[in-house]
């Protein structure tokens, strides 16, 4: 699953540490999500979408493989 967290974070001048503190996870978790090595749970995705005031689909998406 792909995501736009790095871009959205940069637009708001958040560091990985800031974002991690706000949504209640470790910095390593944010880093792993940004690098697309780890897919967040639904509650975490909701917390991130609420913070950025966007829908989950606007942040997380599947890359079209067809």
């Amino acid at each position: 699953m792909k995501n736009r967290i790095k871009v959205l974070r940069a637009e708001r001048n958040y560091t990985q540490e800031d974002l991690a503190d706000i949504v209640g996870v470790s910095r390593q978790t944010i880093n792993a999500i940004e690098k697309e090595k780890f897919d967040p749970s639904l509650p975490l995705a909701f917390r991130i979408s609420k913070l950025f005031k966007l829908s989950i689909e606007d942040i997380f998406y599947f890359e079209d493989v067809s």
Partner: protein
Amino acid sequence: MRKERRINLYRLAAWTWSWVATLAIATFGPKYIWDDHTVLTTLAVLVNFSNGVLMIIANRNLFNNFDELERKIHLESLAMTLGLAVVAGLSYSLLDTTNLISSDAEISNLILFIGVTYLIFVTINARRYK
């Protein structure tokens, strides 16, 4: 979250040291301190067991404080450690019962194996998600 993590870590460290200390007392006490006194030995074993239970509770509290990625890392490591402990432990026991090794199969070797295996898998899994 960080403060809570630190508290949980300190608690786990304290109970682990306490458990190790009471284990040493229960192991060497009967021979070197109280001369095989049955009541004192039973008491030492009970105190050690209680400390072990409290150490497990402290470990569970730390685990519950992990975020979802940390939980995944530790869960994967635990799965590998459990599997390897069962397979390697039974093979080790077989080596002993079939007399393929000269010494007896000691539980302490298995515990050492579990500890090292868990540490290795936590390191590997943490690197995978770096």
